[in-house]
């Protein structure tokens, strides 16, 4: 909210406290001041009188003037002025030579042959916001009243512009401070200074009984204060009131409307004044069951739904309760009599209506954040007082009240011990009493116990913890020590899933991969082309854009998009991984995505260039799974039968652990990667759920081999389509216990090998745990293997 320093000082003595100091103290106490700005600024200003004014000989719009700024003969200066409204006899604001204005410094100059010693100012040039100025005021210099005192140097004081605005960011719980009076109480408590509200109480207890009737047809209006004022004189508001309203960001309309706004600003209670002549039925009923269209004060038409609280008269709607009045019953210059409404409307209902209609008015904001029930009486009293004084109001009728405030004074009990226990402080009762007294909580001390009588406007205070917060924020948080919780010891440890994620990060970064985090929300095209969507995509009810409309069901497109970005920015060897959840309707799954684009080892100088291809990715997956406790006997790579839309059908595979499918990996289909301007990238998207729920093998010690091993290399010629897996399987089965391991170390096709065949070099290691193998044993095993290879795969020893 915009807080006028000058207005505030009407209620609390701010002497010796600069606006900046006040801002600092308020911020420290929890009312954060985000900005401090003078309404107008400028040095070396004085009120002057234009004695003479003639046209500049060398200009079609400039004037040359003689301006008197004092009583002595030497106080007359020649000033060149471009304003169209400058003329002899006018009283004006003069910025003397050396004056510092928002737009710069005023120097003695020569303007096309004429000396100019100063500047005659418009208010805009003095920093006053254009919003508050008429077109005439913006276009020309400010015309002061005829009786303006020439030579007066406190120009801003004279103009009522000697004010500074504090921009206070109120937390939602402190809506009470939207009232100047309550704000004064708060500032008084912070500064420990007395606060004086105007003497308003009981001012509305005037008038005879009239014929106006009120009815509440909805529980959403708990109480309604109404009052008929039979005579008011509409006219301009006093200048101070206009200035204060401006400071608060409210336009001045006329004295009657201004008073309703001014009283709302003072008390926090939204008010509405109706032109009585436009309420011919002398009746108001509050309802919430209408569906209709209505035109509000701002001239716009709104759709009213059931649940919106409406003010009706003679069956016709005349206002959206707590939000905005109707155009029909508006106060204008011809208004002679008024009806005052000060009512309490349901916070939730007003919030819904105001948000739905996008009408975030001053009144709606207050009801939405919470208004004290005792505000109605305050606002009625103050209205009557100000209307009588500034709008010649008379002919008051007795105040009519429908419903009731149902005000229950709040008393909160706290103990000094509990307060210190919660805060970890050692405040004394004197300190605490001082704060609570300053807040007007009227503390009653009884031993350790403190009874607080909460003022009606502090609707945020309900519990001991609220009292403790008041105490610490007004004594200051600097009194807090640094301690750690004194609890029984607990063990801080990672869950298996958390450990697994760390293993992934450590392993993948070890492979030289970089972790990425991409957005969860994606567009429809990405949803439609998802890899293995976890379920039906969840759509947002109100997305911000088409590109962020769905929660992603797979990671593929996000990661490819990231690779595309990196290629477009000339980054090479973009190897990424991401761990993220994916969501479908009623289902979530955590996945690991890996993308290789470029060489995983890129070192031509030393002759090591390892492309990031299918085998690089397979090797990474194998090594990583082994690190998770899944060795080759539990990991299976099968032909990709699931997704040949995104993957190259012959350069991709499914990976399984035990009987659980993890995902597909391999080369991205050339047609698919082209959509992302990518080429030759490999990708894996694996579900982590089987790993979260499964159990990796434990580490197991086995005695080191004591007996030597023997290796035999063989070269076989066999049909091309026989896979390495088939070959090694035969060796393993035929070799039984004596084969410790077997591996392929070379594959050759070409001359000396028949068409359709390949030559495979195989190394078989023989070893026994309990003795040194004899030549006979080895030969026998080896022969068995060769026989099996021949029989099962038609593999021949190469000549």
């Amino acid at each position: 909210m915009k807080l006028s320093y000058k207005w505030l000082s009407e209620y609390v003595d701010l002497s010796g406290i600069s606006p900046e100091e006040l801002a600092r103290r308020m911020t420290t106490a929890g009312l954060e001041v985000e900005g401090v700005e003078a309404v107008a600024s400028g040095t070396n200003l004085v009120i002057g009188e234009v004695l003479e004014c003639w046209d500049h000989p060398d200009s079609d719009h400039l004037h040359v003037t003689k301006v008197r700024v004092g009583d002595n003969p030497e106080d007359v200066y020649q000033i060149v002025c471009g304003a169209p409204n400058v003329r002899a006899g006018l009283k004006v604001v003069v910025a003397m030579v050396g004056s510092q204005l928002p737009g710069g410094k005023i120097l003695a100059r020569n303007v096309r042959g004429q000396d100019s010693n100063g500047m005659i100012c418009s208010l805009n040039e003095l920093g006053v916001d254009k919003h508050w100025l008429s077109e005439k005021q913006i276009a020309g210099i400010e015309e002061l009243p005829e009786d303006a005192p020439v030579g007066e140097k406190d120009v801003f004081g004279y103009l009522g512009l000697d004010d500074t605005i504090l921009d206070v960011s109120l937390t939602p719980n402190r809506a009470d401070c939207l009232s100047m009076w309550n704000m004064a109480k708060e500032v008084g408590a912070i500064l420990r200074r007395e606060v004086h509200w105007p003497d308003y109480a009981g001012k509305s207890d005037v008038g005879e009984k009239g014929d106006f009737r009120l009815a509440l047809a909805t529980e959403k209006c708990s109480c309604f204060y109404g009052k008929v004022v039979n005579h008011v004189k509409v006219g301009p508001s006093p200048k101070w009131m206009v200035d204060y309203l401006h400071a608060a960001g409210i336009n001045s309309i006329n004295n009657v409307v201004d008073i309703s706004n001014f009283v709302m600003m003072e008390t926090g209670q939204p008010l509405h004044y109706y032109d009585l002549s436009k309420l011919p039925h002398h009746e108001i009923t509050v309802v919430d069951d209408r569906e209709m269209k209505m035109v509000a004060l701002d001239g716009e038409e709104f759709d009213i739904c059931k649940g919106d609280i409406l003010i009706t008269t003679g069956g016709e709607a005349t206002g959206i309760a707590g939000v905005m009045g109707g155009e029909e019953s508006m106060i204008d210059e011809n208004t002679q009599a008024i009806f005052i409404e000060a009512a309490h409307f349901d916070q939730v209902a007003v919030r819904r209506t105001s948000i739905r209609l996008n009408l975030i008015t001053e009144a709606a904001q207050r009801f939405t954040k919470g208004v004290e029930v005792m505000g109605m009486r305050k606002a009625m009293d103050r209205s009557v007082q100000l209307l009588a004084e500034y709008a010649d109001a008379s002919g008051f009728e007795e105040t009519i009240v429908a419903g009731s405030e149902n005000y229950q004074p709040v008393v909160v009990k706290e103990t000094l011990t509990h307060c210190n226990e919660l805060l970890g402080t050692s405040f004394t009762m004197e300190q605490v009493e001082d704060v609570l007294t300053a807040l007007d909580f009227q503390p009653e001390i009884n031993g350790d116990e403190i009874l607080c009588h909460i003022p009606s406007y502090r609707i945020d205070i309900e519990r001991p913890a609220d009292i403790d917060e008041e105490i610490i924020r007004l004594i200051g948080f600097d009194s807090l020590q640094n301690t750690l919780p004194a609890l029984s010891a607990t063990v801080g440890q990672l869950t298996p899933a958390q450990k697994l994620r760390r293993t992934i990060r450590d392993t993948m970064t070890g492979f030289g991969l970089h972790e990425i985090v991409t957005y969860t929300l994606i567009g429809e095209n990405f949803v439609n082309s998802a890899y293995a969507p976890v379920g039906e995509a969840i759509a947002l009810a109100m997305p911000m854009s088409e590109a962020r409309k769905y929660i992603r069901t797979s990671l593929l497109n996000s990661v490819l998009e990231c690779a595309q970005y990196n290629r477009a920015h000339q980054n090479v060897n973009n190897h990424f991984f991401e761990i993220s959840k994916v969501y479908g309707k009623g289902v979530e799954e955590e996945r690991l995505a890996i993308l290789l684009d470029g060489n995983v080892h890129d070192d031509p100088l030393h002759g090591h260039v390892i492309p990031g291809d299918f085998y690089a990715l397979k090797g990474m997956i194998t090594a990583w799974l082994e690190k998770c406790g899944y060795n080759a006997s539990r990991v299976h790579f099968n032909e990709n039968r699931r997704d040949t839309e995104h993957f190259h059908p012959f350069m991709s595979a499914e990976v399984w652990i035990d009987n659980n499918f993890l995902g597909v990996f391999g080369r991205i289909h050339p047609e698919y990667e082209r959509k992302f301007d990518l080429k030759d990238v490999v990708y894996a998207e694996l579900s982590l759920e089987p790993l979260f729920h499964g159990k990796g093998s434990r580490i197991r010690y086995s005695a080191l081999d004591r007996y030597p091993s023997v290796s035999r290399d063989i070269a076989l010629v066999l049909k091309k389509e026989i896979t390495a897996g088939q070959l090694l399987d035969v060796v393993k089965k035929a070799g039984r216990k004596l084969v410790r391991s077997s591996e392929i170390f070379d594959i050759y096709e070409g001359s000396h090998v028949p068409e359709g065949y390949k030559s495979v070099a195989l190394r078989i290691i023989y070893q026994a745990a309990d003795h040194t193998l004899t030549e006979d044993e080895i030969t026998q095993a080896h022969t068995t293997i060769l026989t099996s290879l021949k029989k099962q795969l038609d593999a021949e020893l190469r000549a």
Partner: protein
Amino acid sequence: MQNQVENVRLEALKAVEAASDLESLQQVRIQYLGKKGSVQGLMSLMRDLSKEEKPAFGAQVNACKEAISAAVEQKQAELAKKAMNARLENEKIDITLSGNRFQIGTQHPLMLIQREIEDLFLGMGYTIAEGPEVELDHYNFELANIPKDHPARDMQDTFYIDPNTLLRTHTTAMQMRELEKAKGRVPIKLICPGKVYRRDDDDATHSHQFMQMEGLVVGEKITLADLKGTLTYMADTIFGGGRQVRFRPSYFPFTEPSVEVDVSCPFCNGKGCSVCKHSGWIEILGAGMVHPHVLEINGFDAEKYSGFAFGVGLERVTMLKYGIDDIRNFYTNDLRFLKMFDRYD
């Protein structure tokens, strides 16, 4: 005859000395010490000597043989060393050529800072909670003391999926799940990191997706001072040692008292600089004592137990720590950006 022996010895030593490589030395060795060599030739002269003369002559020849052998051995060592030196010199490499390019990958900077903070709290006996990103209104708002139509809901613009389901707007939802799970049992000491979502237009300082880490402690006699002490450790972990922590009053629906937490500026040590806008302090997070109502609706005896909670935006502290000027960097994943965060720091 004695002269003959001496001649052989002198001649042999000369020949050994003259050998320039191991091969010629081998020739010399064969010529003098071999089976048909000169020394053996001297031995054959023994036949013609008398019994009395034989021992003396034999000894002389043996001495000659040993002298030659010693010379050969010495020469052999000399030549071997020379040959080795020549070979090594021949193997000289250019040590200024770069080494093999081993690439170590990087963790995402947000994950890096998350892990550092996690490790601090694990060390203090906290556990790490987890929860769904697609969350129920019940956990995200209701249990956190933000009922429907509460004005605090305006503070967080929410991505709703349906009236009861949303993308969580804060990690507080996980705290509420954990409180519910604990069924009134204490102590609770946990942190809950994760992705959260709010309806913000993406720009240099706003992101519709970001990461939070919240902490929650509930037990007997937990104090606001405990919160301050705990957060001081966290500030040290993030920004390096010696940080001071300052509280300013604030408001959150689920804490009372609520505070904004500032940390003494790590760049100027509180003296004032452009990062802290010359205040000496930077705001890093919000915190407070768990609101008694939150404890009650989650089944805890608020008379007996108290607790504190805090929530830190990981992007915010990472940006502050490294001077990152655009939050979108975290989600663009430019390799050049990622590679900057190659270690715990």
